[in-house]
């Protein structure tokens, strides 16, 4: 199809471009493509002395534990529902923050808002987990202390599944809102100011300007970020769930995601094959959903699709 000479021509013509892309190609090859071979572990009964490729085959036995307890559906749906909640609430809040910060008048107000919102991003989930505990625990938690002060009885947060969906969504947004809104802010800032000025002269109110200028111009970015996050919809944020919920069986039905379930089930046996099987299950689902959503987006508006 292609002659050898065209390949060489291509190389000589775009030498610099090829060199520029080389580090990224190397990176993805080493850390994303090469480990793909490890997928074979999901179907192996791993032995230390025979290594990855020499170990005997296990068929589909490594996947069994996942479906055995009848929890596969529950934890998969938990994972998806939480991620959808994170994505939707995150999108709205991040857009809101970006627009407010962009439109906020004073320079100091802007800086203050950005700094305070960005700060939680730098806290590790371990730290967040321990202060969630200090807020909500029954005996000494500050929220229960406050409730008691106002004469309302203590609430047993850690024994009750009703609150945690909100608590988790809240803390996830609290942590990522500042950081993720930066991208939107960058888009807003890059919009040609003359558009706004013209609209202002024509008498458009601030809300009209946001609705008709800012939002439409942001849609391509929103779509890309949305597609990227949908690609990870079957992966639970292990740190978030594990550090905040921990090993509290009372809450598992409402808060268990694939990652925490796998961690708890395999932490004792440390079976590499079974962990690989769980990882493969997630990856396969993620792959399917990103292909599907990209396909749909492409049908509707080809410009917004990822590939």
């Amino acid at each position: 199809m292609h002659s050898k000479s065209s390949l060489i021509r291509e190389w000589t013509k775009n030498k610099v471009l090829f060199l520029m892309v080389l580090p990224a190609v190397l990176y993805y090859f080493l850390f994303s493509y090469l480990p793909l071979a490890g997928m074979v572990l999901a179907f192996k009964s791993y032995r230390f002395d025979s290594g990855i490729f020499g170990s005997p085959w296990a068929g589909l036995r490594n996947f069994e534990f996942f479906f055995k307890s009848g929890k596969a559906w529950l934890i998969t749906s938990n994972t998806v529902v939480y991620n959808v909640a994170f994505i939707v609430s995150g999108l709205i809040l991040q857009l809101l923050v970006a627009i407010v910060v962009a439109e906020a008048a004073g320079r100091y107000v802007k800086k203050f808002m950005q700094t305070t919102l960005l700060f939680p991003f730098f806290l590790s989930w371990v730290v967040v987990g321990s202060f969630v505990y200090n807020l909500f625990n029954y005996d000494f938690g500050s929220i229960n202390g406050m409730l008691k002060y106002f004469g309302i009885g203590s609430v047993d947060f850690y024994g009750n599944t009703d609150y945690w969906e909100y608590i988790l969504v809240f803390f996830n947004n609290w942590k990522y809102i500042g950081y993720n809104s930066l991208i939107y802010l960058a888009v807003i800032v890059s919009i040609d100011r003359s558009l706004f000025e013209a609209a202002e002269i024509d008498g458009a109110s601030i809300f009209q300007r946001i609705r008709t200028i800012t939002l439409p111009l942001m849609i391509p970015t929103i779509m890309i970020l949305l597609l990227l996050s949908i690609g990870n919809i079957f992966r639970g944020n292990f740190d978030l769930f594990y550090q905040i919920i921990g090993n509290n069986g009372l809450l598992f039905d409402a808060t268990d995601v694939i990652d925490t379930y796998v961690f708890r089930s395999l932490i004792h046996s440390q079976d590499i094959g079974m962990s690989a099987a769980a990882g493969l299950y997630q990856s396969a689902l993620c792959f399917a959903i990103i292909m599907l959503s990209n396909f749909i987006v492409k049908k509707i508006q080809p410009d917004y699709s990822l590939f």
Partner: protein
Amino acid sequence: MKKVRKKFPLLLALALFVSIISACSGGNNDGSESQPASPDASLPAAVQSGESAKPTGPDTSEEVKLKMVLIGDGAPDAKAVYDELNKKLKQDINATVDVQFLSWADWSQKYQLLFSTGDDFDLIITATWAQFADNARKGAFYEITPDVLQKYAPRTHSDNLPEVLEAGKVEGKQYALPMNYHEITINGYVVRGDLMDKYGIASIDSIDDFEKYLDAVVKNEKGMVPWEGTNYDNWIIAKTQLEELREQYQPGNLGLRVDLNDPGAKIIDDIANPDQGAIDLYKRMADWNKKGYISKNALVNKVTSKDSFLSGKSAAFLTNLLEANATYQTVKANHPEWDVRFYPANTTKKVVANSFMANAMAINPKSKNPERALMLLDLLRNDEWYNQTTTFGLKGKHWDVSADGKLVLLPASQGYPPDAACPWGWRNEKYYLSPSDGLSNYDAVQTSYRGRAINTKLNNFAPNLENTKSQQAALKDVENQYELPLRLGFVKGDVESSYKTMIDKKKAAGQEKLIEDIQQQLNTLLGQ
């Protein structure tokens, strides 16, 4: 054009892949990398030290560096102690050892990784609680054949009891050298004597007495949580009440119990017959939980029960005798008025000593110097100086012996607390000293338990879990979600229905298949 641009990274990737693969296989060839032989005077030292006058001593002309992996957080003086040991080791077997500690916080993740990543360690601690049998079957350990053992670890071969070595075998092959020590784990209640005296509780001989104590604390000591119930001690309450006091036993720690008095070792099937004893215990726990004896945070608390007790926030916890003794010594220094006491939970029933495999050492099959590693183990296990130095620290600095042959801790022992730097794998009854300054009933409790100890073949049960690993994993999750809250009395509705839910979930997770598989293995072990 576009197509070509797409293909180029692929070609590049391919080229890289090939080069990496060949680099890897090339790396394997230098396995026998030799260190320069050191022609110093240390050669005859093995004979000098007096521990081995073997006619055909192993060749130690080449100096080697060994790497030993242990579990725990080490001790501040561990380096100093091992430096001292290395001086002597160099003379004795022309080797030095470098110790690496895997912290308790994440050892279980790192431990297995050491094997799968091909780390170059020589010696590693193993035990029943670290999946010894399972790892051995997966080829994680060097097989120590009788010939090798006789040649390089002659004292272990000739002096140690055959049942000690027997415990380190899986399917007839020796994969580990277990500790040379009859260990009995004595679980019980740690309470404060001052509070007992204040509320007129004479002794804690049963769970009822413990309940009275907790009741007195919750009613009278405001601001104090009677029992945190976290981590390890809620496990002990089930262990003592449901196993030890009913003379039941879990072969291989798989969550399956057998009656000790049943020679056929038939696994008790909770699915077919609900365990009334367990239901009663859980009811009691639910009652304790409701009355505030147990912290409402027990399931999520990030502070251990022991630390809470030490800081004066709680009034009791459950632990084993050794930990209790350590607690006693810590408290005696800071709060002598608390008068810490320990009451064993099981005062009359039969006791199963731990398997010797409760702690052991094994050799990496990829080790370049398994012979020298074995020689080191022989010294650690059987030589008084090596054994006691690694266990208690430097004599005269960290510890000393009293006139009646007991262990006296010197002030510097904080830097190397006895037994802290993980010398468990080579513990030896002959050299292990009991503390001179511990709990007043320390020796009496030990004697009482030893008098009741029985032997059972089940102790050396090395289950093969390959066929039931899915069930194990699923059951582990059920245990976490349903059994743990029950044990601490966290129930919605009534205990009986919660218990039934747990049993149903266990059934769904494949408990019956596990029982069937393990029963078969037990039958084989007992020769039925």
